[in-house]
């Protein structure tokens, strides 16, 4: 079976070869065909003959025999007739076509122009290849085939593009293929490379070319091909440059410009947006900066982005889309202060850093056509111009701070961040009275006080910190450098942070005070009470409370008992008065004094409380005078049921030391020390003297003997 199949295949091959030979024999002979002539016994015909370009064979001893255009049969007879004159026995003459050949000429821009001998059924491409191939600068779309004096133009490039044999003519012997030179080669033969050639386009300079110029990488003239689009042409021109305004591409056709928005086409892919392209059209790609972009779909991105400019937007485009299209923020961008300038004139701030860090709960801002995104430049601390930070981005910190100044602000920061950035409070800072000045949005400035010291000492929740925003001013007050030198700085010291101490202290005045200090601190700062201070009657006026209140402080009792409960709580703005013990009697209320009259050294009004005795009082008044009636000192008590008088015998007391003899004396009483003239004896003796005198006068008048 296998052997049968092999035999069948061989038989088929033989049949096919025979059929081909028969078919070839039917073709008319052409120049170049190789003819085999056999005449036994004549070695001159052992080699085959080729029909020359003139259509004739050159036979030995016979000469030329014209065979072109004849069939093989006719050619056999022509040969027989020609050689019959020389050779007698032609009974075994045989003429056959050994091989059909094509003899064509390839001229023009080929490497080896000239005649080429080709196998039958060879194509133009094979002919060009036989001529060494195309030379640089060949114009492929305008090759010519010249046959019988007529020229036929064909687009060899198109054949190369699509591979359709119908696009190129079939060759016949004696055809001339002419490859023209591209007009880009100019009139002077020079060596140039393919890139240079391609850089200037690939089209002949005629009305069928497409001109592409402007912001493309290789502007030039390009050959039009059926079905070519603007995109094809731009791509052949190397594509657009980075400066191209692809929204405003122009196609000039028939002296009329037509716009082409390539970006929109790229976004949508709609062929409707693509204008038709015809031979001779011109494509112009303008520079993006050549014109101000406006439109209903434009969003502007400005500032510190890599590619600021106007961008076409579309429905659903987000802020991040816009920012990414602009190349994103540069390393100089202040991404915490991005602002979106809405078309209605409003300004919307956006903190991109906080958003990316997840510390900002707000969502991405919406972007609509006509909006502008401004990415400001990050402030350089070394930048001398402070004007770069606008007031609505800045916060001020002044006073007792190590680096007072004006700083950029972000709402995710708090006052502790600001203080840390400003170097922290100075050593002299009064951190218990930090002032926060906040604009309320209506032009008014609201002042709030914050006890930073307490917060730092005791801790607390972050919400206890004052809420500050851009535009605020933080004032860190300064403590007096020397508590005793308070007068020199009293103006700088707010009254609500001060306390007042008057009267019998060595340094009365106005002192800085906070909740950490107490009454004794203040008394010490005032260098303590003087020797004339009445410590039993210290008064504290409590201000700032709903009801006016005065505390009476008995410091003597405090020093006697050590009971801290006697020390009053004082607050800023309170007033402390330490009276003088020996005040002018006019300043003394009657309820606190005792009047001492009569024979004492210094009669008058004296301060008195119920821990004193009449002995103290007499001593204070200089003691009884020499003529004092010391055993009859009278005390007039101011009793509720009416005054009552009691007598005190100082002489008897001095002899016995019996304290129970001391009469009750209380403030408001009167002590009278009579002199000796008031004694009963002296009064009686006076009366006696008066009586004796009267009697003496009566005696004299009567004329007694």
């Amino acid at each position, binding site marked *: 079976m296998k052997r049968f199949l092999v035999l069948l295949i061989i038989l088929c091959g033989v049949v096919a070869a025979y059929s081909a030979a028969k078919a070839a024999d039917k073709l008319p002979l052409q120049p170049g065909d190789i003819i085999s002539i056999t005449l036994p016994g004549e070695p001159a015909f052992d080699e085959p003959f080729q029909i020359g370009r003139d259509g004739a064979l050159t036979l030995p001893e016979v000469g030329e025999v014209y065979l072109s255009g004849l069939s093989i049969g006719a050619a056999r007879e022509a040969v027989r007739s020609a050689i019959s004159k020389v050779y007698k026995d032609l009974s075994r003459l045989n003429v056959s076509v050994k091989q059909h050949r094509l003899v064509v000429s390839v001229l023009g821009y080929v490497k080896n122009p000239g005649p080429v001998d080709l196998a039958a059924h060879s194509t133009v491409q094979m002919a060009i290849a036989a001529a060494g191939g195309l030379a640089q600068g060949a114009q492929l779309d305008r090759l010519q085939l010249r046959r019988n004096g007529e020229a036929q133009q064909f687009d060899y490039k198109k054949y190369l593009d699509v591979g359709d044999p119908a696009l190129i003519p079939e060759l016949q012997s004696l055809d001339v293929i002419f490859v023209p030179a591209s007009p880009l080669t100019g009139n002077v033969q020079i060596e140039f490379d393919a890139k240079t050639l391609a850089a200037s386009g690939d089209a002949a300079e005629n009305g069928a070319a497409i001109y592409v110029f402007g912001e493309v990488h290789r502007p030039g003239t390009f050959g039009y091909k059926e079905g070519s689009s603007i995109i094809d042409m731009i791509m052949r021109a190397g594509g657009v440059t980075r400066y191209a305004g692809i929204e405003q591409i122009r196609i000039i056709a028939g002296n009329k410009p037509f716009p082409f928005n390539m970006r929109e086409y790229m976004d949508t892919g709609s062929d409707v947006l693509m204008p038709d392209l015809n031979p001779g059209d011109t494509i112009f790609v303008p520079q993006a900066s050549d014109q101000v972009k406006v439109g209903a779909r434009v969003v502007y991105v400005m500032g510190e982005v890599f590619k600021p400019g106007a961008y076409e937007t579309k429905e659903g485009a987000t802020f991040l889309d816009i920012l990414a299209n602009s190349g994103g923020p540069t390393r100089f961008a202040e991404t915490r202060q991005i602002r979106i300038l809405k078309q209605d004139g409003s300004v919307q701030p956006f903190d991109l850093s906080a958003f990316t860090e997840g510390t900002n709960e707000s969502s991405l801002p919406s972007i609509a056509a006509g909006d502008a995104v401004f990415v400001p430049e990050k402030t350089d601390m070394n930048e001398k111009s402070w004007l770069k930070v606008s007031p609505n981005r800045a916060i001020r910190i002044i006073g007792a701070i190590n680096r007072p100044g004006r700083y950029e602000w972000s709402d995710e920061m708090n006052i502790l961040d600001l203080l840390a950035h400003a170097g922290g409070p100075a050593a002299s800072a009064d951190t218990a009275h930090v002032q926060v000045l906040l604009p309320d949005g209506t032009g008014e400035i609201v002042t709030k006080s914050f006890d930073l010291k307490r917060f730092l000492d005791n801790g607390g929740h972050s919400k206890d910190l004052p809420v500050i925003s851009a535009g605020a001013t933080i004032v860190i007050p300064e403590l007096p450098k020397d508590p005793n030198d308070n007068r020199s700085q009293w103006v700088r010291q707010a009254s609500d942070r001060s306390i007042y101490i008057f009267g019998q202290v060595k340094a009365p005045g106005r002192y800085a005070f906070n909740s950490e200090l107490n009454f004794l601190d203040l008394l010490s700062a005032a260098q303590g009470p003087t020797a004339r201070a009445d410590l039993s009657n210290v008064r504290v006026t409590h201000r700032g409370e709903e009801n006016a209140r005065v*505390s*009476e402080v*008995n410091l003597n*009792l*405090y020093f*006697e*008992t*050590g*009971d*801290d*409960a*006697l020390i*009053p709580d004082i607050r800023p703005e309170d007033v402390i008065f330490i009276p003088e013990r020996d005040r002018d009697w006019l300043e003394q209320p009657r309820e606190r004094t005792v009047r001492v009259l009569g024979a004492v050294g210094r009669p008058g009004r004296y301060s008195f409380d*119920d*821990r004193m*005795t009449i*002995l103290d009082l007499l001593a204070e008044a200089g003691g009884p005078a020499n003529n004092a009636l010391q055993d*009859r000192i*009278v*005390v007039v*008590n101011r*009793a*509720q*049921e009416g005054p*009552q*008088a*009691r*007598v*005190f*015998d100082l002489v008897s007391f001095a002899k016995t030391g019996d*304290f*129970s*003899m*001391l*009469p*009750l*004396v209380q403030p408001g009483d009167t002590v009278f020390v009579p002199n000796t003239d008031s004694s*009963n004896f002296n*009064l*009686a003796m*006076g*009366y*006696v003297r*008066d*009586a*004796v005198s009267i*009697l003496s006068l009566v005696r004299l008048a009567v004329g007694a003997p």
Partner: protein
Amino acid sequence: MRRLILVSSAVAVLALGSGCTPWPPFGHGGVVESHYPWHADLDEYASAEARRLSELRTEIQNIKLIGGEGKFPAYLRNAQLQWVRTARFCVNGMDAETFSNLAVLERMTRQMRFWIDHGLQHSDDKMAYAVGEAS
């Protein structure tokens, strides 16, 4: 002799009738520094106020002994002074003053007893403390 008797009688009549009036009674009292009459015996004064004063003195001494002096020393001292003040009015027969001061002393004593019974210090009830001191 008869003349001498006549003159003497006339002088005595003039002295007694015109100049030698009786002096007020001698006073009674004491001094704080001697603590009189803190320790005085008030039994000789048979009034109800004197008896109450004697009872309050015992109460104040008790409060002092059970810790009052450590918890509210100044208030205790003021109560003692108030007791002295009241007693001095009492022994001098100034009834109105005795009565009003005794009322204050009663309140102060009750306040101290309250603090002792509830284990409080002056700082726990400073306002009451201040009121007591001011009185």
